[in-house]
């Protein structure tokens, strides 16, 4: 290390060479990380230290929320309670109706010999209130690998699709919201069945649909649902609502803007879908079945008896 006295008036105390070496190092680290995999171990180790910091950073806002609840007047609580009870009543009424529909649906599906119905297994999670980067739409959840999470799980709230898990730490996970500029979700227009893709815009209340065919039938107010294509999000969840339609720069496509259905900047609690959607495509082929190996005898070269018999 340099001595203290040398730095007082000396102008060029930091060598350009050291700068170049460190810059090169940073660039190498960036490239390795961008290419993936190489720094997984490093990231996983770092995540052990990262989690407590997230919790610590979220602590003040948690305290603030707790104090707000503590000092809320009886009146407010009572009115909130009443409101919630009304909502519950409404939801239960809807559920009753749904029950009959589900029963009917299972019967019909049984008739159609459908393989399995879409049972929703969900997991409840809370947001950890930290801000990773205002220009990337990521949020932190308080569940992680130890609660059985995996990268790619869809995240929804009461009103629609919020996003998907992109990083899993032991007790925390990071969700990319649908409005993140690098996110895209395959959608279908509910009214017409037109398929397209909704891209994140980087603005919390807007999605972009930049490539709708000019002839496509899309109107302001159309609801967008997940189409289930791509195999990431199960089909039929609300994604957003068309807000405006215009022509894109080239004039070859119509471009629409949509409002996300989920309360992306307000939800405190979210649901994680446990079942990955059914893989898209034909069923996998039957395993080859042949006679048991001891009965098959020596066949001609190249033709082996298939699977050994299972006990």
């Amino acid at each position, binding site marked *: 290390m340099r001595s203290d006295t040398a730095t007082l008036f000396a102008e060029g*105390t930091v060598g350009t060479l050291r700068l170049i070496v460190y810059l090169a190092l*940073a660039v190498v680290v960036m490239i*390795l990380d961008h290419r993936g995999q190489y720094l997984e171990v490093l990231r996983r180790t770092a995540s052990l230290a990262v989690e407590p910091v997230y919790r610590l950073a979220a602590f003040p806002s948690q305290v603030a929320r707790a104090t707000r609840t503590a000092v809320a007047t009886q009146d407010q609580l009572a009115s909130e309670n009443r409101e919630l009870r009304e909502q519950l009543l409404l939801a239960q009424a809807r559920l009753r109706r749904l029950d009959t529909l589900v029963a009917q649906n299972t019967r019909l599906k049984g008739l159609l010999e459908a393989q399995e119905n879409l049972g929703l297994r969900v997991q409840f999670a809370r947001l950890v209130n930290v801000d990773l980067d205002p220009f990337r739409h990521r949020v932190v959840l308080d569940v992680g690998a130890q609660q059985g999470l995996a990268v790619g799980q869809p995240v929804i709230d009461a009103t629609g699709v919020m996003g998907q898990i992109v990083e899993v730490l032991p007790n925390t996970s990071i969700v990319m919201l649908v409005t993140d500029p690098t996110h895209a979700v395959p959608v279908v227009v509910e009214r017409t069945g037109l398929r397209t893709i909704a891209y994140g815009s980087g603005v919390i209340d807007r999605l972009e649909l930049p490539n709708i065919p000019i002839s496509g039938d899309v109107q302001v107010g159309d609801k967008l649902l997940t189409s289930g294509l791509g195999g990431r999000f199960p089909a039929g969840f609300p994604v957003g609502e068309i807000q405006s339609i215009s022509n894109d720069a080239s004039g070859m496509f119509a471009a629409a803007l949509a409002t996300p259905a989920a309360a992306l900047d307000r939800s405190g609690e979210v649901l994680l879908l446990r079942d990955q959607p059914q893989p898209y495509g034909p069923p996998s082929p039957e395993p080859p079945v042949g006679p048991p190996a001891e009965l098959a005898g020596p066949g001609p070269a190249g033709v082996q008896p298939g699977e050994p018999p299972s006990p």
Partner: protein
Amino acid sequence: MNRRRLQLWLFAGSFAFAFLLQLMPLPQVLLPLKPWWIGLALVYWAIEAPERAGLGFAFLLGLAGDALTGELLGEQSLRLLVLAFIVLRFRARLRFFPVWQQALAVLALFLNDRIVILMVRGFSGAPMPPPEFWISPLLGMLACPLVFLLVDDLRLRLRGSD
């Protein structure tokens, strides 16, 4: 010895506090306004204690920051390296500036930092940020006198305490 250890605690504590401030949630409207606290802390310490806050320290600090925000590892390292290098180069002049001139220097440094970010994002293929992206350096400039005076005051108190 004791005094030295206190100073070291202040040094580490200021960076820990900067990290927490950086992660602190804000209402959606205010998010783009958040100044780059880690950068401010590094500028301060590079001016005041260059033997501690050198290039190597900036590199490691950046790696820690990237691990925390889940960004491309090395992005913040690069930004902090550029920042630390410029500050250390002009340290002899910067440290005798009045506070408002230091604030202007911070504005210039942070604007330069935004350009560095754009370069990195451009190379890694990430989309370009919206116009609000450029507001944060202004807030950094406004926050700079506060931070510098506060930490100066703390250091003086620690020095006088024993």
